């Protein structure tokens, strides 16, 4: 186990190192001079040189590279080039709880929708309910999350006035204010994932319901309810656990877009605003933190599998 653990952690660190290196190289390939873009008025060469020296851009590439890695390792991504030049690390620390709140709630929403839907579809196979679930799942997969977000705003905020249309309130200010601001974004992010999970639960339940041990359980005279809930569902959920890795991917891509619809100042909004403003320190910081979330959640999921299914760790 420990050898597997060390290998996986080492692999994750290598990926992060590669990402940091690529971010460094890529942002030095950006066409045009970022300093000139930062200054708006590119006319004054002395001012350009001064900022270049201040940012260390006049030093040789390898010095810049080592410095970049060293500072990034200490969580120092520099300062935003706009306004009061806030430290990027502060922006990230402020954004992180918003994104994590949204992602967590989206995950819960998705599971709450998907498990009953998948169960009903599988146990009443080829019924109207099964047809409805399958069809709605297709719709859910085909809907752009930002459009679903707009639809939810039109219905629940603009017309019914039940929920706020934009913004974020920290959990510290009470559960309802936090929840009411996040539930629409969470629905928008979670729907596509719930469609995938519902389809997986349906097909994996159908497989389990056809097994010998289910026939034995049924012939013992167990009620249909206990058959499904205590015998079939736990077994059907095993393949579903494997999509939890996809969950992180989908939920994080979803939050990047949906945060921008609901004006939630999370990591996604930080990243997109940084790109739109050509605020390179912010872009670098956001990319590194978003990437770190992926790499370490992948790592976590791998470890989870290896606990559930020992074959995985024995193989490597």
């Amino acid at each position, binding site marked *: 186990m420990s050898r597997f653990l060390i290998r996986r952690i080492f692999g994750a660190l290598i990926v992060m190192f590669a990402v940091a290196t690529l971010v460094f190289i890529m942002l030095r390939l950006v066409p045009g001079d970022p300093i000139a873009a930062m200054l708006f008025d590119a006319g004054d060469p002395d001012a350009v040189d001064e900022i270049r020296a201040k940012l260390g851009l006049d030093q040789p590439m390898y010095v810049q590279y080592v410095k970049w890695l060293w500072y990034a390792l200490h969580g120092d991504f520099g300062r935003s080039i706009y306004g009061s030049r806030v430290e990027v690390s502060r922006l990230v620390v402020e954004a992180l709880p918003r994104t994590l709140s949204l992602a967590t709630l989206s995950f819960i929403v998705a599971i709450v929708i998907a498990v009953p839907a998948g169960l009903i579809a599988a146990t009443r196979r080829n019924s109207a309910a099964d047809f409805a679930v399958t069809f709605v799942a297709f719709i859910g997969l085909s809907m752009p999350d930002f459009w679903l977000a707009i639809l939810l705003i039109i219905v629940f905020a603009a017309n019914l006035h039940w929920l706020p249309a934009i913004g974020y309130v920290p959990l510290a200010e009470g559960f309802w204010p936090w929840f009411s601001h996040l539930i629409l974004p969470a629905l928008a992010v979670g729907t596509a994932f719930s469609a995938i999970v519902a389809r997986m639960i349906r097909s994996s339940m159908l497989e389990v319901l056809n097994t010998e041990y289910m026939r034995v359980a049924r012939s013992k005279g167990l009620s249909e309810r206990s058959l499904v809930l205590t015998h079939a569902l736990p077994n059907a959920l095993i393949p579903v656990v494997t999509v939890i890795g996809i969950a992180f991917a989908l939920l994080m891509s979803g939050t990047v877009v949906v945060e921008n619809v609901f004006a939630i100042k999370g990591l996604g909004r930080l990243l997109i605003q940084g*790109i739109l403003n050509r605020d390179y320190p912010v872009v670098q910081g956001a990319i590194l933190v978003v990437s770190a979330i992926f790499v370490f959640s992948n790592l976590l999921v791998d470890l989870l599998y290896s606990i559930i299914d020992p074959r995985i760790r024995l193989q490597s």
Partner: protein
Amino acid sequence: MSKYAAVLGADDASAPVNHKASFLSTVKKDKKALFGLITLSIFVFFALFAPWIAPYDPTAMDFDMMLPPSSTFLLGTDDLGRDLLSRIIHGTQISLLVGVSTVAIALVFGVAMGIAAGYFGGWIDMIIMRYIDLQWAFPNFIIAVYLVAVFGAGLLNVIVAISLAFLDDFARIARSMVLTIKEEQYVSAARVSGASDFRIMWRHILPNAIAPIIVQATVSVSYAILGEASLSFLGLGVESDTPTWGLILADGRSFISRAWWLGIFPGLAIMLTVLSINFLGDGLRDHFDVREVKDV
């Protein structure tokens, strides 16, 4: 099977698939694939003949601002008095162009990488797999956003970004297919009869690896269209004077409390296109009996 089973398509435990039957005959039996094919054909028709079909110039501004749908403006007008229907019809062009071109590029390069990795093995395999593993750690959309952050916005950049983001999916599938196919007797037979590596890969391995690649390509087109729409919506896509579905939605977003049509119809166009491709993809998946396709 009940009436619904026919609509849902071939089911998980249904009769074995006949590989020799043509896809069209499968489509006739599979109602959702048929729906997909027809809807998609309509959108392709829109894209090809947009200037002749659209009732108005999609960029012409007018004083008829924010008019609700009516017989003059079937889907209403936007805040600058532009006809929404004409803009959506023209938007089909960008969506389908990006969807098809990105997947074509990703398919050609990704499959070439995957076949080379699987066929030659050794250090070639190692280098390609290291790259694929690196990319595999991130969702395609995030990679596209990262790349646009570097390249900047614009149609060509978006196409390059999305193509690169899909590379690993095709490479991975092609490689895993090659690993099983290259052990087949007909490959050894070809090698013994003196066929070159290139000929073996092109004539013997590729045709036998094509089914899962086609299914992946179909799924990828729908994700590419969603990706382009998302990038455009965020302001990272095509230049702002080109009507694209994502951009029309982004422009209309500020007015949705007064003009619901600006928030509904462009999204409906995206959803219908993606839905029809997904239906078609699912039909293909059943037709070829392919299981492993990445769903992100």
